[in-house]
């Protein structure tokens, strides 16, 4: 079975944000860090590794969504979100302890990392210049 979530090697991460760019291309076909499901905090002097969905064993987002759009997949164990039905209320964003759920500015729906399930594995990991990210399959083109 695939890794349960992405994993980042904080010692390797240099905060270059290529993961954001790759994620947005993978999902939206465009360079647009605001549509990325992985984000590098802009902390400057104390660089911190990117935030992404951890698929928590006890996931607050599942409880937080008033429409019940989050669920744990019985097959993969991942936390899944029915993005199509989202109304953009933002409750899940508030609930996430990792600040890893975002509103897509183009659709005003919540979005988060799904390990690029069904798209060959995480794009961010494939394109990270430092090999700091790992998870799921080998990535597009090799998956």
């Amino acid at each position: 079975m695939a890794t349960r979530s992405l994993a980042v090697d904080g010692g390797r991460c240099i905060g270059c944000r290529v993961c954001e760019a790759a994620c947005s291309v993978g999902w939206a076909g465009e360079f647009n860090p605001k549509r990325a499901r992985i984000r590098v905090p802009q902390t400057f002097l104390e660089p911190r590794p990117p935030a992404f969905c951890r698929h928590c064993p006890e996931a607050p987002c599942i409880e937080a969504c008033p429409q019940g759009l989050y669920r744990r997949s019985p097959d993969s164990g991942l936390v899944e979100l029915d993005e199509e039905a989202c109304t953009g209320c933002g409750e899940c964003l508030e609930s996430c302890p990792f600040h890893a759920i975002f509103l897509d500015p183009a659709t005003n729906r919540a979005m988060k990392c799904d390990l690029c399930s069904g798209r060959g594995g995480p794009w961010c990991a494939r394109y990270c210049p430092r090999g700091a990210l790992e998870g799921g399959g080998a990535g597009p083109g090799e998956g």
Partner: protein
Amino acid sequence: MAAAGPRILWVNLSTGRSWEEGLDPALWRLYLGGRGLGSYLARRHLRPDVAPLGERNPLFFLTGPLTGTVAPVGSKFVVVTRSPATEGFLDSYASGALAVELRQCGYDGLAVVGRAAAPSWLEVADGGVKLHAASELWGLDALEADARVRELVAGGLGPGEPAGCGVLAIGPAGENLVSFAGINSDQGRQAGRGGAGAVMGAKRLKAIAVRGTGPVPAEDPRGILELAREHNLKLAESPLGKARSRFGTPLTLDITNRAGMLPTRNFSSGVFPEAQGELDSVGVERRTVASRSCFGCGVACSKVTRFAGSGMEPLLAVEGPEYETLGMLGSNLGIASLPFVMRANHLCDRLGLDTISTGAVVGFAMECAERGLLGGEWAQEAPRFGDEAGALRLIEDIAFRRGLGGLLARGVRAAAQVVGQGSDRFAMHSKGLEFPAYEPRAAFGAALAYAVSPRGACHRRAWPPAREVLGGVPPFTVEGKAQLVKEMYDENCVLHSLLVCDFPFKFIPLTLQDYARYVELALGQAVTLEDFSRLADRVETCIRLVNLALGLGREQDTLPARTLEEPLPEGPPAGKILGREGLDRMLDEYYALRGWDREGRPRPETLQRLGLEDEGGPDGGDQIVGR
């Protein structure tokens, strides 16, 4: 073929109005962006009666066709304006999210004109421009202003939404119109050179925040990702790349100190043995706690250093120091303490001062003091070489224009005019811009590069030591240097027009052919090496036209007497003299290679060849400020 040409957002601070200008799509091939587009816009909008600190001087923030993609590495912008230091063309570069955010707003450039009635800050977002009162920001240091602006932007967003934005801010030096005030970008980065911060201060513009949520324009994002991946894999194997990633720019100090080109005590020597193990790669690595990367870059050459001060001194963390700062605020002041350089670097970042020019003017003041050339209170205030506390005090005085600091705030050229007594011999500048941290007597090509640089003494448009010190080209001769300098200018001109950082290009390394591929993937329009080469010729000559119109010609393509006439006392260049004849010969050859006459004026056939003969007269900002 990309349908639209470069888009510029204009903001007039005098009237509060803003509008968009769509430029001719042909400009992509003719000028790309960055320096190239800046040369085109400068020719249209700069003329002698546009005073650098007047309301008609436009302040351009320009990106390029690769900005915001992950092509290595397009997260820089260039500030183009008329420089208060040189009164000529200024292009000053920095990295920062602003470049990416601007493209996400749908713009390739931002142009600010006019002057606000009261201190203001500018917010640019997807669909709008807001000019806010900055009464609570005015007077803050540049780092505080950046942090406060981020809070204000975040406050306007939805719950939980991170305030990813690009922020520029000036410090007290910019507010007080110091001629070498820089513009800070995302806190510790600076468009430092040439006084762009003073132009912003004169407009009463304290800060700019840009936040966009649209796509960065690119025809084939996946293609760019794949190509960048290939290049990043190459970077991981590159010895040059690995060294630059590990040590950052301080590694350069190891090289320059050996080559006798490390400015020491106001360029009176090129060797500073005390720097070893302290100001060099070894010393800086010891205090490095993190590497910081620009958007899209696998190199991460920027080093964050930390110093736990003793007793009451607070813990200090700073982005840097970079090589230039180590040289100009370290060896050039006769100071071999890394904690001091970090402290001075941090102080300059807060005050919004260019560390290079600051080091040059303080070094000049120290030499004046040693020689007893300063009278009255200045004599008492002026530190001597090696005086750390005195140097820090003087740096602060510069930003607030107090006492001797007030004199130095005008730049080293103006200061030498006031001090007189032959001090212009060792006022280290060209065209009014202070020398960066390379002693040109140690590599004669570097002397030519400084002299012909349109913005004044500059190491960024060409760095001949790469060949003269590291590449086997004899350093102490003028033979072939005009050709060498022209080739380097042309190559960097393409990179700085693209606008990408030249470090990945040099350290992966990449070729211009690689960038032609990136441009095609971004614009959907093929460009050739021939296009690049013509572009470089066109842009360099276009900038020459701008400078000539502003009164800068051959007479200003010169260097101080110390550089031309005095031999260095030690190291490899000991006893070598370039001489005025040496510089004149290189200038003659350089002009000829560019198709300029002996006075450095482009010949009519050159203008015709480059399509510059009738490209619209400058409007001097009349049409703009009237809007």
